[in-house]
């Protein structure tokens, strides 16, 4: 009796890391405090870096190590650190976010994973097996990222949601064997994220603007509908 999959250990490790990324995405869903959320974000990027480095190893594609290194330095360490400072400066570290029912959000997350497996696995039947499951799991990460962006009120949590979404896309891009321009695209994305973070910092964007508080809405929109 063997516990090895028909594709060997290399594939199993790739799948395990991708699965781990989905799991960490779920961890984000139930974080009540912003600081805890930022820690999980660091973990998310760390798992991504491991996964990309593993892809670089099994695909024999050294340029992917650049992407892995960037994920580690930039997304696992630098950005969470910068966001953490912002959280303290804006005095958000004691606040508990209202996330509208963690149970419901988790269920929605599970439904999204089921959906992406259901959608992606049949259509990628002819693709190579690593890419196949990586893409399905990457789509789950993307959709959970969207879910985080939708359910959270705070601008910083939206950035976190967007970054996890982007990590999912990185997973898909690196899982697609031999895809050109991956490094360039991840650099472009990192610039985008840097801009978002700088934007939050410079303009002290605390809340996302479409709150349900009508008075707030009136003030910002100034009756300019």
């Amino acid at each position, binding site marked *: 009796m063997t516990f090895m999959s028909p594709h060997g250990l290399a594939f199993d490790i790739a799948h395990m890391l991708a699965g781990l990324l989905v799991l960490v995405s779920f961890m984000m869903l139930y974080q009540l405090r912003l600081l805890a959320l930022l820690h999980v974000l660091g973990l998310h990027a760390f798992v991504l870096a491991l996964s990309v480095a593993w892809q670089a190893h099994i695909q024999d594609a050294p340029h992917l190590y650049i992407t892995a290194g960037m994920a580690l330095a930039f997304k696992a360490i630098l950005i969470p650190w910068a966001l953490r400072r912002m959280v303290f400066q804006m005095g958000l570290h004691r606040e508990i976010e209202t996330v509208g029912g963690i149970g419901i959000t988790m269920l929605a997350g599970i439904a999204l994973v089921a959906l992406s497996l259901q959608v992606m696995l049949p259509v990628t039947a002819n693709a190579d097996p690593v890419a196949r499951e990586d893409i399905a799991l990457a789509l789950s990460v*993307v959709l959970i990222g969207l879910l985080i962006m939708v359910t959270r009120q705070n601008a910083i949590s939206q950035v976190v949601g967007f970054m996890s979404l982007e990590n999912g896309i990185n997973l898909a*891009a690196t899982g697609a*064997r031999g895809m050109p*321009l991956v490094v360039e695209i991840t650099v472009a994305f990192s610039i985008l994220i840097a801009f978002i973070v700088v934007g939050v910092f410079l303009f002290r*964007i605390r809340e996302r603007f479409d709150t349900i508080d009508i008075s707030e809405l009136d003030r910002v929109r100034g009756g300019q509908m």
Partner: protein
Amino acid sequence: MPDPVTGILLTPIIAAAILVALPGYRLGAALNMLASFAALVFALTLLWDRPPTTQYLLVDDLNIVFVLLNCFVGFTTSSFSASYIGHEIQIGKLSLTNIRFYHAMYQIMLFGMNLALLANNIGLMWVAVELATLTTVMMVGLYRTAEALEAAWKYFILGSVGIALALFGTILVYLAARPVVGEGIDAMIWTNLFHAAPDFDSSLLNIAFVFLLLGYGTKVGLAPLHAWLPDAHAEGPTPISAVLSGLLLNVALYALLRFKVLLAANPNAIAPGPLMIGMGLLSLIFAAFMLYRRRDIKRMFAYSSIEHMGIIVFAFGMAGPLGNFAGLLQMTMHSLTKSGIFFCVGHIAQVKGSQKIADMGGLTASHPVLGWGLVAGMAAIAGLPPFGVFSSEFLVVSSTFVREPVLALLLVFGLLVAFGALLLRVTSVAFGPVIGPVGRVHASYIPMFAHFSLVLMAGIWLPPPLVTWFQHVAALLG
């Protein structure tokens, strides 16, 4: 002389590098115009001097139309921007540092859009669209007011999500192409993809198109993904509203069309038409109703852009030689008319010191040129003859009536609803009692009238070479 493509792409980069260091807004504005004009000249030479296709860049009959339109509106907007910015500096709304930044960003934006249009590589195209998005986000937030920052933030977040989904779609296209075209850069080159598309795995291509439609569709401003568009148009500087409506929406549409051609070439893939028709109709009818309750004039024309993008996407969704032809014509007419309207509205808002519709009235009496200009623009955008939008909308409707009468009825319904809203507004803004300040305006009317007279000319007489060109492109689009 460098070859045209290099010229189109290199001019704005060099100009941006100089503009960022150039003191004084007059000099900056002049250089901005000069660089945009140079890009337009290079774009015109594309008509007879077509560089060979490379791994990264491509010039074909389809993108020449877009590049020319892009460079033309880019140039006229830069000349409108010169007089607009002068006024903003006088009243102290913008500082000189802001202006340097603004001019440099303007050129980088033109570079990004032209690169997206000329890219032969779907990855490069994606990066270019992202660059254009980033620069416009920064320009939307230029005034630093709470409203402008809200608009920029909203645009940023929604645009980024859209662009992320588009990248996921691009990756899926690569996955579909890899088994057929082979690994590496080849499987991202559009010309290769186009030739190999019939052999792609169709189900993978289907899913990819859904992501691309959602992703680039966000940037086109299709309902229900349009939420960023009205804010970004209303709160940014007016020249940026003009290029957003006139150009950036087209660039995203162009990206969508390229992928649509891939899908159409694959016999087993879903027809992209019905999806596009559905979203187009939804955008048209939704935006038409939204036009009624607008109190901000720039916001109103932003909804009108959603409406027109709806019509255009609908026409391309109907496809066929006639549908594509109508879509191309409608797109060209909309770009010219809508940016012309924003030139006019920009000056009006400066005179009145407000963008609120309630603060303006009787413009034809107080400012005849601006007032009648606005009347002409609104008549054109509402689709009245003899303007070009009338002929293109007529073509969309009549070609639809032959094939799908029910859809044509819905289309006409949306058009009429929008027409009513515009008629209602034009009477209060242009006619009736004079409301608000009546000060003199330091405006350059040339860009506005250049646009409107082109639209008028197209409505009366389309040059036969243009017609054959568009027919040829329409056939390419399948």
